[in-house]
């Protein structure tokens, strides 16, 4: 339950103020807009990577702004996509001379608003492209990959886009690589308990004691299936099985791994889970590459976790390995 707030209507504004006050060594507020930009932006000679979405998912999105990652993040209200107007303003603030790539999770609200901003920028002659993250296998079946929503896989796609942009790749190339990272990323999550919007007393949803929800969305969208709670080893098995069943075409044997906590689930639990995830991946003949066990894309105080795999190749691996610096992730 959200406990620390003043007027719930000011929540987005105040969290951005606090974020920028804390991390002024990395970011500043986009003037007159609900967004955060890297200190060095706009950076001539570089494609600008603009990420964004609703609030409530920190480190997504503002935690990933900085050198080697995003140039800016547009921040909507809790669980609400930012408006097209805000996306537009942030874009104008960070666009340099090589164009702009939008990267965001594939949700109706985000698509509508980023698309409107993209159209407006294009009318002004600014080259803007978009890569929508669609990693959640629970949200649409095989063959409908483009309809899937974006969850923790955001992290891999942002990292790939940021690393490509910072080394000077052209917009079409940054777009291609981000799209490729997305095309090869799969996630699946489970939830054990609901989250509560600031100022609300009732949780968005409840998970009955002793049960868990499979495939639940990061905004509390109900899962695709409900199950009794299982030991960590079985949950690991279930997550790995769901992803391997959806292995993307052209996949190799090396996978970047992200075990993501949604909010209330402890790091210790994530490590207990990872123990078996690791063994299952090895057993499936896969080589886990620089696994990350952390809170990368949260959902307020939801209890639960997800597993994301990115099947690497020789193009993508260096992008994940590349250095970067941001409030939430430094490599």
């Amino acid at each position: 339950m959200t406990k620390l707030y003043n007027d719930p209507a000011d929540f987005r504004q105040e969290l951005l103020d606090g974020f920028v006050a804390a991390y002024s060594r990395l970011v500043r507020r986009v003037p007159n807009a609900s967004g955060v930009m890297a200190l060095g932006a706009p950076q001539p000679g570089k494609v600008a990577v603009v990420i964004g979405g609703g609030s409530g998912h920190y480190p997504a999105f503002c935690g990933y702004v900085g050198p080697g990652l995003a140039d800016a993040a547009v921040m909507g209200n809790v669980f609400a996509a930012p408006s097209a107007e805000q996306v537009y303003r942030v874009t104008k603030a960070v666009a340099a001379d090589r164009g702009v790539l939008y990267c965001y999770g594939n949700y109706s609200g985000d698509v509508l608003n980023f698309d409107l901003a993209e159209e407006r920028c294009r009318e002004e002659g600014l080259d803007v492209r978009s890569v929508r993250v669609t990693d959640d296998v629970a949200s649409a079946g095989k063959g409908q990959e483009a309809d899937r929503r974006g969850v923790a896989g955001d992290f891999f796609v942002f990292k790939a886009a940021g690393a490509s942009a910072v080394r000077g790749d052209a917009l079409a190339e940054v777009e291609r690589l981000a799209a490729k990272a997305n095309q090869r990323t799969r996630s699946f999550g489970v939830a054990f308990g609901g989250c509560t919007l600031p100022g609300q007393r009732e949780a968005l949803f409840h998970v009955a004691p002793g049960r868990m929800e499979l495939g639940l969305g990061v905004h509390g969208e109900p899962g695709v299936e409900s199950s009794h709670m299982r030991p960590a080893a079985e949950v690991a098995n279930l997550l790995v099985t769901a992803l391997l069943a959806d292995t993307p075409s052209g996949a190799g044997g090396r996978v970047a791994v992200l075990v993501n906590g949604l909010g209330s689930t402890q790091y210790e639990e994530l490590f207990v889970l990872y123990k078996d995830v690791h063994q299952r991946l090895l057993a499936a003949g896969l080589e886990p590459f620089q696994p990350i066990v952390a809170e990368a894309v949260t959902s307020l105080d939801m209890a639960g976790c997800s597993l994301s795999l990115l099947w690497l190749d020789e193009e993508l691996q260096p992008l994940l390995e590349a250095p970067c610096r941001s409030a939430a992730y430094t490599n």
Partner: protein
Amino acid sequence: MSAVVVVTQSLHKAVDVFQAREQELGRLDAAAGDGDHGATMLRGLRAADAAVGGADPQSAGDLLVQAGEAFADAAGGASGALFGAFFTAAGRKLSTGDESAAGVSEALRAGLALVVKLGKAVEGDKTLIDALSPFVAAFDAAVAGGEGAASAWHVALPAAEKGAAATAAMVARRGRAARLGERSRGGVDPGAQSVVYLLSAVDAVLQESCAANSSIL
């Protein structure tokens, strides 16, 4: 009552209505989505109301454009973009056309067309379209049958209500809830319900204005 006053009073009324409905709409959204629809609508309407309240008296169309922009920006999310686009497109049409019943009808159609173009939903997808589209059709028909705007509005309202109610039996194919498949069946679509509350707020203003025996609409 002038068209300008209808717009400003309707927004004012809508803020009251959505304040009372915020939790209910949130719960409808929580059933299959992310629970923010009531808060999003209220945020948007407050901003629209404030934008229009501070503006110099202009044409109703210009006011609607301003309201739509303020709504879209403050609300965000899917409904911010879609309701905002509806207001803006309707306002544009109104300010270039006339404020007769036929002009209002054209404005509504323009608003609906943009929402469909942006959101790509068709009737039966369990979205706000399921309330808005039948309303616009019924309003059109009433106007074609010779009704004035206020009376056509009142006559058309049940079509929106019926459309919204029918979403309960639908499986979502657009928006957040679309990922749920069969599990999205059962609840009324929050966006469709909001359409009903919005149109009802306008209706209330129009009926009051008729009772006071004004003319324009």
